[in-house]
């Protein structure tokens, strides 16, 4: 019962948050002279009347509150509106983009968790060793390497030479898993590595710190005193307790990333939510921008709910209220 009550309350607050985000985004973008789109549609030689006509057709000449009302009305009915430039439904655009962004995120998450947690746990259990120093240096290196630089360097140092020598497995751009798992992996591997490098650094740091803290606690000494094998002490007692901050970070990261892996998508031409939101921003395509912002916010809200649920599962001291 408590779980149902918890979910109902969180979903309701989540909807309120989304409404606030929608309103903020709407007024941020609409409460200013929006000539860019009309001018682009009309062409360079357009007269003032043509531009005015286009604006009227797009509904941009109505009072702002009327526009806001129409916007909310459509939103409640699950309609995010239509792209200014080609009239395509924003719902359709989002439906096309989600698998692309999700492809990048899913593989990236697996990769960075394996590397980040693995290195983090090894460093914490061998604190001060050569491995630990080396990994700390690697973490700072990973954090210092901007995503777009790493992405471009990978294209330059891996993609280009391989394809020059006729090895065409690794490609850029997007391929869906329905074209064959091999093709999909070949297209996605560089984005995964790019995304995972920065994130693995973050997770190594986080899990190392958290595990070092945990290993200093009394219950670990108790477990050792009981004569448990070290492996069991570390994994069953240490890692499990140390995972809570990692889980909360993971939830937030996945939620944020599903809302668009902007730079990685742009570098590799994935054409998912991230890349399309940059395009929409540049083109001043308001319905698409607001659709993406709402989508991103919805993912963050959902991720927070999942994280709180996961906390209760991982740590018996946490109660959901």
């Amino acid at each position, binding site marked *: 019962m408590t779980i149902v009550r918890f979910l109902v309350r969180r979903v309701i607050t989540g909807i309120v948050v989304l409404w606030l985000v929608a309103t903020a985004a709407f007024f941020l973008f609409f409460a200013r002279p929006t000539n860019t789109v009309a001018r682009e549609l009309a062409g360079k030689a357009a007269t003032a009347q043509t531009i005015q006509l286009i604006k009227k057709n797009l509904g941009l000449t109505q009072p702002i509150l009327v526009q806001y009302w129409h916007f909310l009305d459509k939103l409640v009915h699950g309609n995010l509106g239509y792209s200014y430039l080609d009239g395509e439904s924003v719902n359709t655009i989002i439906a096309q983009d989600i698998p692309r962004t999700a492809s990048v995120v899913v593989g990236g998450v697996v990769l960075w968790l394996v590397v980040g947690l693995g290195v983090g746990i090894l460093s914490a259990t061998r604190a001060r060793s050569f491995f630990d120093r080396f990994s700390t240096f690697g973490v*700072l290196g990973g*954090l210092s390497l901007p995503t777009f630089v790493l992405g471009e360097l990978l294209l330059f140092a891996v993609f280009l030479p391989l394809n020059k020598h006729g090895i065409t497995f690794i490609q850029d751009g997007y391929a869906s898993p329905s074209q064959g798992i091999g093709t999909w992996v070949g297209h996605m591997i560089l984005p995964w590595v790019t995304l995972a490098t920065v994130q693995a650094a973050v997770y190594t*740091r986080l899990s190392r*710190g958290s595990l*070092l803290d945990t290993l200093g606690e009394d219950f670990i000494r108790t477990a050792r005193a009981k004569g448990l094998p070290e492996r069991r002490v570390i994994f069953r007692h240490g890692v499990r307790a140390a995972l809570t901050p990692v889980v909360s970070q993971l939830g937030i990261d996945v939620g944020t990333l599903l809302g668009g892996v*902007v730079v990685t998508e742009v570098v590799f031409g994935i054409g998912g939510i991230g890349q399309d939101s940059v395009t929409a*921003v540049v083109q001043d395509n308001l319905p698409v921008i607001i659709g993406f912002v709402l989508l991103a916010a919805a993912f963050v809200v959902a991720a927070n709910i999942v994280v709180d649920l996961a906390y209760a599962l991982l740590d018996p001291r946490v109660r959901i209220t």
Partner: protein
Amino acid sequence: MSSVTELEFQAQAAESAPEQAIEGRSQWQLTWRRLRHDKVAVGSGVVILVMVALAIAAPAFAALTGHGPTQQFNSGTALNGIPVGPGRAFWLGADEQGRDLFVRILYGARVSLFVGIVTTAIGAAIGVAAGLTAGYFGGWVDTVLARFVDAVLAFPYIVLALALAVVLGPSLPVVMGIITFFSWAGIARIVRGQTLSIKEKEYIEAARSVGASSWRIMFVDIMPNLLGPVLVLATLYIPTAIVFEATLSFLGLGVQPPTPSWGNLLSGAESYYNVAWWYLVFPALALFITTLAFNLLGDGIRDAMDPRTERIFAAGRGRRRRDREAASAGAAPKDAYGLTGQAGGI
């Protein structure tokens, strides 16, 4: 002499004591001494100083090579339009418009370092003021500020940054405003936490009991104790800000061409790296070396500030023991500074 009270006697004794006996060392002196022995931190500091010197000397190098930062040279591109590689004329090669890459990287360093240092300084000032106010006054002031900080930290900043850049028009001041907006919140959160614990200390109570104003307590009694963590945070925020600017410029919404910045140099390199490796590699190296140096220096300062924290790079005996003690004493782990995220956008 029997009229001498005990206090006067002590004072006389103190005056007559040999002067060189024991010299108190301030926290900053101790930090400096430890930092000096940290080779990695010193090396990083030197790298940063060299970068700053090169950035300041950019016009000198432009004069020396005879290549202005935005000047185009026919000799810079081959007949087929491919940029000329590194050599005597163009030390690090040229770009697709025949401009000198070396000179452009140096001028880009001016932008990057200026943006990194200035936005961090402003962000730190705002963060300290907000965090102090929230932590010291508590109540509704704290609630409002803390929620606002949460909101800023939770926002999908890269999209908002892009949107703001478009709404306000991309330019250097706008980029700096955006970066500052996202940098103060993390500092405010740490400062608030520290203020909450410091304001319960006895000496603050003592200050209040002698009638010190809130203003005085906040800025004279509490703030000096915050400078350590803020300095560490600031050193680590500078590379984040540099990467943030480079990312915005890379996406075409930061510093606008022809003004060079590391971000828009790399953006330009995107279509040429298959024929001109230097165009990609050298700006990338400049960016990487600078951010890495700031990160290593920040890590070193943090280790030097707090003798309890783990000192990965500094040698010494009994490290393992100290490590355990640090962990069990609840010493702030690195991530207590909330620096687990990379604000450059992914």
